[in-house]
């Protein structure tokens, strides 16, 4: 991207930070570790999920280096298995699932709905501690023998045969589940009861709708994986029998229960990212989102239909062909709301006033990568094709496009978008654009070759592979090194900007949400007085306070509903 004029609009740039805000309200370690302020808890989460991201990233790096050669000599088979398992566990349970909800959601939901805090601030803090305890168990497992069951913990490998430290890992993931549950509970109650006057359901930012949908999954899905892992753990620790085929139990039942949560868990990762994108696009196109109700409704539809498709992970386990047909059909249904979102985002760009700021670059990157990730889901939902590509690198590529291309792009883009609100300062725009483009290129180079590898038949979770697959593995590893740089760069300049970045002011973009109506960084109580909402979501025209050139705008008829 070349340089762009007027990248940062000039709406109310302040010179100094507000005198008092949540970051300097109190000092000392205790004031952080015992805080009940949702914004501080969000920052605690930010630090801890970043920690796990780098742990998971380190494992990923070793995996990619090992796979440079067919008979990789970096690590043994046993170690390799532990690497990809620990990569999965760290990334999924301790980075991706909490990332956007617990960091951005925690920070923003009360601000967006005009509340002083979440409904249960102490429970919010508790959920962070639960996360830490769960993380502690998992790290203990990683450091005392590691874990080699795959992040899916399939029985009877995990409950009977594995010799690695399965028990502490299962306990850790079990405990961590309650952190998710409490976060979801807090969000649902907060969104129901804490909205400011005038903040009706259909004036809610789409980010909030996305988190409401996510919370449904947290609440109704997470307990199932908790109990399932508990049962598998009991089978291992106390030799009880639930799934153990030696006693006549059915290992496939474990998969049913596991995927009952773990498929919707994919939507836990992507829905909040979709929420972020739904905020960024109208802001940087300066126009209302196209089809508000459809985007909001599709979030709920994804969360609900997402619970009906899990057995598409099990087409080849010997599950009944009738069940397979049903689940395949339902899987195609869940693709539709995602498609609706993409079309609406694209249409929002039409006749917008589009700036090329970094968050917008992430949003566009997200659309591109999510498109690939989502469309390749259609291949996997297809029964006939799944026979061939199931459990190959095609699957690996597909879910990395969704989880890394989608969720992480959304997360990093969201961090940039709200960074001025979180820290009161702007990140360096030029470096940020370079990082965004680097990430996009690195990501595609890493994961696109894996689609081809998958169709060629390379199975996943292989520490060595036939030499004919080497070319694409080398490409993938090369891409991964670019990707790694792309992640390090924002880490460095974001930390730098906390001290040296330009002071942002209340509403640097400007954006329409309530969170931009208060100081950056906000007060501990969020707002001086409880705000009253008199405008529709994403309405730039009837908002003189934003200081935009509304008169010069080509205006259509007055704002009307989208139905």
């Amino acid at each position, binding site marked *: 991207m070349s340089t762009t004029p007027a990248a940062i609009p000039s709406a109310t740039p302040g010179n100094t930070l507000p005198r008092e805000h949540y970051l300097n309200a109190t000092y000392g370690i205790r004031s952080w570790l015992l805080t009940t302020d949702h914004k501080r808890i969000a920052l605690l989460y930010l630090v801890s999920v970043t920690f796990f991201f780098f742990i998971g990233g380190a494992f990923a790096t070793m995996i990619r280096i090992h796979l440079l050669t067919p008979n990789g000599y970096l690590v043994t088979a046993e170690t390799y298995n532990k690497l990809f398992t620990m990569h999965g566990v760290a990334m999924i349970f301790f980075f991706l699932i909490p990332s956007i909800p617990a960091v951005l959601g925690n920070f923003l939901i009360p601000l967006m709905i005009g509340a002083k805090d979440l409904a*249960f601030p102490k429970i919010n803090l508790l959920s962070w501690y639960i996360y830490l305890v769960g993380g502690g168990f998992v790290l203990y497992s990683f450091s005392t023998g590691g874990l080699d069951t795959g992040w899916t913990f399939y029985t009877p490998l995990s409950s009977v045969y594995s010799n690695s430290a399965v028990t502490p890992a299962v306990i850790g993931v079990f405990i961590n589940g309650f952190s998710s549950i409490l976060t979801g*509970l807090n969000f649902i109650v907060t969104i129901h009861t804490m909205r400011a006057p005038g903040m009706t359901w259909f004036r809610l930012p789409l980010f909030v709708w996305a988190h409401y949908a996510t919370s449904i999954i947290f609440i109704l899905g997470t307990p*199932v994986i908790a109990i399932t892992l508990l049962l598998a753990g*009991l089978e291992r620790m106390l030799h009880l*029998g639930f799934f153990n085929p030696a006693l*006549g139990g*059915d290992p496939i*039942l474990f998969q049913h229960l596991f995927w009952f949560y773990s498929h919707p868990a994919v939507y836990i990762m992507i829905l909040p990212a979709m929420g972020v994108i739904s905020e960024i696009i109208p802001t940087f196109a300066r126009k209302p989102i196209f089809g508000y109700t459809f985007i909001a409704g599709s979030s709920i539809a994804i969360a609900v239909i997402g619970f009906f498709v899990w057995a598409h992970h099990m087409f080849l386990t010997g599950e009944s062909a009738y069940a397979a047909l049903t689940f395949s059909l339902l899987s195609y249904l869940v693709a539709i709301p995602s498609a609706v979102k993409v079309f609406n985002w694209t249409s929002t760009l039409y006749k917008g006033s589009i700036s090329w700021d970094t968050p917008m670059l992430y949003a566009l990157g997200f659309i591109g990568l999510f498109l690939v990730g989502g469309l390749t889901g259609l291949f996997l939902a297809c029964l006939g094709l799944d026979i061939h590509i199931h459990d190959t690198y095609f699957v690996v590529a597909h879910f990395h496009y969704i989880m890394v291309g989608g969720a992480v792009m959304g997360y990093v883009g969201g961090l940039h978008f709200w960074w001025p609100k979180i820290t009161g300062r702007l990140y360096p725009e030029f470096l940020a654009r370079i990082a965004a483009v680097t990430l996009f290129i690195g990501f595609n180079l890493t994961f696109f070759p894996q689609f081809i590898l998958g169709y060629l038949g390379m199975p996943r979770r292989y520490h060595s592979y036939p030499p004919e697959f080497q070319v694409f593995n080398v490409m993938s590893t090369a891409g991964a090194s670019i990707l790694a740089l792309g992640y390090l760069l924002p880490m460095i300049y974001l930390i730098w900007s906390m001290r040296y970045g330009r002071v942002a002011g209340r509403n640097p973009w400007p954006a329409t949400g309530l969170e931009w109506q208060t100081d950056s960084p906000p007060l501990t109580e969020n707002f001086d007085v*409880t705000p009253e909402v008199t405008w529709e979501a994403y309405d730039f025209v009837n908002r003189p306070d934003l200081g935009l050139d509304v008169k010069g705008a080509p205006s259509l008829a007055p704002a009307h509903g989208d139905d």
Partner: protein
Amino acid sequence: MHRTGELFGQFETMDQQRESASLGMWVFLSTEVLFFGGMFMTYTLNRSTYPDVFGEASRSINLPLGAVNTIVLIASSLTMAMSVWASQVGKKQLLTIFLILTLILGSVFLGIKGIEYHEKFVEHHVPGLNFSFEPGASVATNAHAQLFFSLYFAMTGLHALHMIVGAGLLIWLIKQSLKGRFTPEYSTPVDLIGLYWHFVDIVWIFLFPLLYLIDRH
């Protein structure tokens, strides 16, 4: 915890605070439904695969104890409901009495459960500990009976764990109640813990026929 009837900073009104607390508890209970649900699913499949052995194994557990326990637990639900009523109408002494009754009934339930577990232990019916179902039972019957008893212990064990947590909460409530903390304006903790207690009762209402009453004819 906090002083009685205090309005927390994040809320605007007492009503909002009460509604949030109640909704929060219900949402929590809905996760509990799915939490126990995973075990009910495992039970459903294993029982439908081995109906006969499950019947045989079920007949080996002590029905009179289970039935008495059901009655005890439902009675404790009644006293809990009465505590909620007492707190709502401001009968402070009655509240304390009902809470103590609930706690006693809950403890009786746990005590009887303990006796049952002991019986099973003596009979070598605890999977993973010298399990042997019946002298002369075939290898398969033995294996499938282990599935039943694993579920029996996991389900009743997790239920008992919930009871123990509930008992702890009740002790806290009784302390508060003795200090006269609850008034008709402020009885949220009694309401919420009441909801939790009734939920635990409901779980048992399903566990009882599923575990104790298979093919008793």
